[in-house]
C-alpha cells in the first residue's frame, strides 16, 4: 500500500475500463451452478454454461487479484474552490 501526498493536485486513479461487476458476476455464476446442479439441460447446453462460467471465473479472478489500492492524500486546506 503506497501513500502519496499530492498537494492541491487532483489525482485520479484510473481503473480498467472493462471492470467486472463482481456481485453480478458471482450472481450469474451461482445461477449457472444451480442450473448445472438441477441438470435440466442437455450436454451441449451444459458445455456452453461451463465455458461461460470459466470466462466469468477468469475475469473474476483477474478482478479479485488486483494489487493493493493506493491511498492518495490531497491537502484540501489550500484549495481555491469557492462555494
Amino acid at each position, binding site marked *: *500500500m503506497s501513500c502519496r501526498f499530492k498537494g492541491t493536485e*487532483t*489525482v*485520479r*486513479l*484510473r*481503473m480498467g475500463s472493462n*471492470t467486472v*461487476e*463482481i*456481485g453480478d458476476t*458471482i450472481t450469474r*455464476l*451461482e445461477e*449457472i*451452478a444451480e442450473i*448445472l*446442479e438441477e*441438470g435440466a*439441460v442437455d*450436454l451441449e447446453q*451444459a458445455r456452453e*454454461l*461451463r465455458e461461460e*462460467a470459466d470466462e466469468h*471465473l477468469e475475469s*473474476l*479472478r483477474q478482478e*479479485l487479484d*488486483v*494489487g*493493493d*489500492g*493506493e*491511498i*492518495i*492524500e*490531497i*491537502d*484540501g*486546506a489550500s*484549495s481555491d*474552490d469557492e*462555494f
Partner: protein
Amino acid sequence: MADVGDEAAIEPPVDAAWSVTELNDEINSVLADANQRFPTYVIGEVSDVSVYDFGTFFDLRDLDGEATISCIVWSYQRDSADYDLTEGVETILRASVGFYVDDGRTQLTVQNFWPVGESERSQNLAALRETLKSEGLFRDERKRPVPEYPRSVGVVTSLSGSAREDFCEAVHSRDSRIAITVCGATVQGEAAVQSIISGLRRLDRDPSIDVIVVTRGGGADVDLWAFNEEPVVRAIADCATPTVVAIGHEDDETLAEHVADQRAMTPTDAGVAVSPRIDRARQSAQAVERRIGVAYADFVESQLTEFERRIDAGVTGIEQATVTHRAVRQRASDLERRVSMAYDGLVDSRLTELDNRIDDAVRAIEHDAEQDAVTVRAARSRVKGLERRIDRAYQSRVQQEIEELDRRIEDAYREVEMDETIAAETTEARRLRVVVLALVLVLLGLVVLLLLGVL
C-alpha cells in the same frame, strides 16, 4: 509559569522543574483559594448530554461563541430537579468549579438547573431541518445505493485525525484493492464549511471515484456543528456520486447524515459500509467455482453413466436378442430334428405298421388262402365224398330205383301179363323212367352247383 522564550538552547534547570502532580496540586490550591471569585450561576446551551446511573455529564456551551465547559450533575441532585437537561436548550446552572488533580481537568459540579428556552442555534437548526425535509432531501426515495464493489473511494476528512486512519484501515482490511483518495479538510471551526465543501466538489468531479465518504471522529456538539451548516448539507445532497456520511459517534446526529445516501456511525463503520469483504467475495468465487466444477462433473458423469447404461442396456438387449435368436434357432433346429425324427419315426412306424399289416394281411391272405385251400381241399374232398356219396346214393338209388323199377317192371310185367293192365304198367314204367332221368339231372345239377359254391 515562567516564560522560557528563547531559552531552549540553555541547559534546563532540572531541579526547578515541577512534576505534573505538583503542578496540578498547585492549580487545585489556587482555585480553592479563589473560589469566592467564581459566580454561583452560569448560563449557556446544554449539549452532549450523557446520562449514567450515578449522574449526568454534559457540556455547557457559550450562547454567542464556541467556548464550552464540562459539567456533571450527580444523580441525587438530577433526580430531585424540577426539569430535565435537554440538548440545545439554554439553561441556567447553579454550580461550583471543580478541579481534578489526576487529569488536570476543570469541571462544573451542578447543584441545580433551570431551562430558559431553546437557544437561537437550536431554533435555527430546527428550522433548517424542516426546510430540508420539506424539500424532500431526507426522503428514502432519493437515496442511491452505494456500489457493492467500489474500486475507488473518495473521503473528505481531516488528514491529522484518527478518523482517516480508522477509515483507511477498515477499508483495506476488508478490500485491499480499493484505491482511497483522501481529501484533507478542516472538519471543525470557522473554516470547516468551506473546506468540507471544497473537498466534496473536488471528489465529485473525479469520474473514477465510485463513492464519497465524509467523516470525522467524535467530539462535542460544537465540534460537529459544521455538518449542520446548510451549505455543507446541501453540498452533500447535491453530489452526483453516492455519499456516505459518518460524523462522531453513534449518539451524534447531524443534518449531513440525513441527506447522505447512507449513514454510518463512525469512520470505521463508514469504511465497512463502502468496502465489501473481498475475502468473502473470493470465498464466494471459490465456492461457486467448486460448485460449478462439481455440478458439471456430476452432470457429465451422470450423462456418461446414462449413456453407458443405455449402451449396456442396448448391448444386453442385443445379447439377449442374440441369445433368444440362438435359442429360437436352436429350438427350431431341435424342432426340425424332432420333427424329422418324429417324421422318420412316424414314417418308420407307419411303414412298419403297414409292413406288419401287409405281413399280417399277407399272412392272413396266406392263412385265408391256406384255409381256402384247406376248404377247397375239404370241399373237393367233400365234393368227392359227396360225389361218391351221390354216386353211391345214385347208384344205390338207381339201383334201388332200378330194383324198384325192376320189381315194378316185373310187377308190371306180371300185371301186363295180366290183362289189361300190362299196357298201363308199361306206360307207367315209361313215365317213371322219365322221372328218374329228371332226378338224375337234378342231382347232377346240385353237384355242379355245390362244386361251384366251394370254389
